[in-house]
């Protein structure tokens, strides 16, 4: 699943995005001017102390909220000033959400939960069933299609959420503490799924505290007081780099220098 964007056009481009809230006479500036590019296929972790604005940034990236000023280009299209209906469309087709507390709809079965975004896109009954079944299989839940969320473990519920996030083939997957409510084993499983998604070319932008995720991601964006404080390669990128460098060093050592 390659993204439609070319190498040069980032899948996400934030240009001086700001977000402020009015609380009575006080104005709170939560995001104070962030400019950021994310390319297709990246695996980005957004981190920072509490109150740094990372959740707000994620909401902006997810089109759940709109910036007070600045521009947000998603897949080349400026979504910063769209009306509510158009924003809903964008969320439906181009974005996938994964939440810390799974946020599945209790009255619906696993299959029906996965299919919800398809319904809002106007898909036919047949398409809904086929795609949902395929994705359930992809996350290893084919044997639980008719179960209700309260009959599943935390890890299983999060897998349903992942399948749901993928069902409309979005440009970007966003997650807020995806492993926050999971025990270490389930957490590992979920992280494994994320690795695989990324290796298939999916763009992942996650808010997290989980050290294991930091180790596996390719880029870390650290926020402080509503601004980007650090933007650096993540664990996976670092180890990649290390591998390349050590490979180079080895090469240098091994090749004899005949003439210098």
């Amino acid at each position, binding site marked *: 699943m390659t993204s439609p964007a070319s190498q040069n056009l980032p899948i996400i481009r934030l240009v001086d995005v700001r977000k402020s809230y009015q609380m009575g006479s006080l104005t709170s500036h939560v995001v104070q001017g962030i400019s950021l590019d994310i390319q297709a296929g990246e695996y980005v972790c957004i981190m920072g102390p509490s109150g740094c604005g990372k959740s707000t940034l994620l909401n902006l990236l997810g089109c759940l909220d709109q910036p007070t000023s600045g521009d947000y280009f998603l897949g080349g299209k400026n979504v910063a000033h769209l009306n509510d209906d158009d924003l*809903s469309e964008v969320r439906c087709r181009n974005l996938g959400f994964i939440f810390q507390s799974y946020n599945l709809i209790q009255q619906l079965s696993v299959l029906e939960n996965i299919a*919800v975004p398809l319904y809002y896109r106007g898909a036919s009954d047949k398409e809904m069933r086929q795609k949902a079944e395929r994705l359930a299989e992809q996350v290893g839940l084919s044997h639980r299609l008719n179960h209700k969320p309260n009959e599943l473990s935390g890890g299983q519920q999060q897998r349903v959420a992942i399948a749901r996030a993928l069902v409309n083939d979005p440009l970007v997957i966003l997650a807020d503490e995806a492993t926050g409510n999971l025990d270490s084993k389930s957490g590992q499983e979920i992280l494994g799924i994320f690795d695989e998604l990324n290796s298939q070319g999916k763009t992942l932008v996650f808010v997290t505290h989980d050290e294991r995720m930091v180790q596996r991601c390719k880029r870390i964006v650290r926020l402080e007081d509503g601004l980007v404080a650090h933007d650096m390669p993540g664990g996976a990128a670092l180890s990649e780099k290390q591998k390349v460098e050590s490979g180079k060093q080895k090469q240098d050592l091994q090749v004899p220098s005949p003439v210098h």
Partner: protein
Amino acid sequence: MSFLAHHPVLRLVLSPQHLWRTVSLGLKTIWLHKLRSFLTALGVVFGVASVVAMLAIGEGASHEAQEQIKKLGSQNIILESVKPPDSQGGAAETRSMVIEYGLTRRDIDQIRRTVPGISIVVPSRILTEIIWNLDRKVDGQIAGVLPVYPEMRNRKLLNGRFFTEMELEANLPVCVLNQSAAAKLFPLNTPTGKSVRVRGYYYKIVGVIEDDSTQAGADSGGGSSNATAQIFIPSTTLMDQFGETFFRYKTGGFEAEKVEFHEAVVRVGDTTQVMSRANAIRQILTSNHKKEDWRMIVPIELLRQAERTKQIFSIVLGSIAAISLLVGGIGIMNIMLASVTERTREIGIRRALGARQADIVVQFLIETTLLAGVGGVIGVIVGLAIPIAISHFAGVTTVVKAWAPALAFSISVLTGVAFGIYPARRAAMMNPVEALRHE
């Protein structure tokens, strides 16, 4: 088609699959909170049931009244002789006097001559007598009438025929029994062709006519024999045999009444003229009679009064029903507001997954409409059961018109929609971020 599929409402309207999906989701949600849904729908059930039941009872009562009045004939003006009250009792001497009262030949002739546009006047005389069949007897009335009597008074012949002009001219002793007389005197076989006796006179029965439904205690449908037994003979025959005066013997003396006509029916050619002709006749009779010994019944006026009463009744019923439905609707709105609050998280999730505000509105509106609709269906069933039970056990006529349940049901659905819009919009207007944070 893909463009249409994007729009939340059109999507539902055009695709039965999606509509069914949303409806079944609504049904599931209602079923999930059975007690609460039931109590909510109860308001609508009462509202609808009361509309249907009260309309049926009202229609029934009005129908009864109108049928009875129609039997009298909407083009007719009925004149009756009434025994004046002040001629009862008194001194011993007056008990032997002949009391003269009521409509006279002079009245009839004057009416015929001076009032235009009236087609027939049917004078009749009614006497109270005992009617005999061999050794069976019944207290009844013997009436001398003209052959057009059944047509004028809208009374159907159940057997045989009425007597003819020829028989009238010839003063023949033929008669027609009413149903009640026939049942009492000839319980096992048809009377037609046989004879009855009144005093010393024998009459051959040529037919049987239905009972007078305006009589108290008569059942217009069913042939109950509470009606007075009646025997109809040609008025000329009656005049011949019984004369104009008859005597009634009582202890301590006798009482004699002289009445020329007990009853006359005037038919007006044009229903719009009825009231004016009635006024004209009233003037004639008032000037001719010093005593209050006559009475006029104008069926069309009664009919109009009945209509007015029915209208007032309908307005009152309608108001009561409207209030019950209002209460039901408020109940629905109350529950839906609570439901929306409970499901704030779910609304946030759906919005995050791509639901538009209109999608949320539709989802909740369908739920309220279903609640109100189910309440409406149950209300119609209960509302139909009540008049049937009343008809069955209390013998009161009820009439259910086809439009009443349909109207009541539609109103219940509209109530659901109207009172569901506010909660649904509140749900849709929620900020997704805040909604997701809830609870």
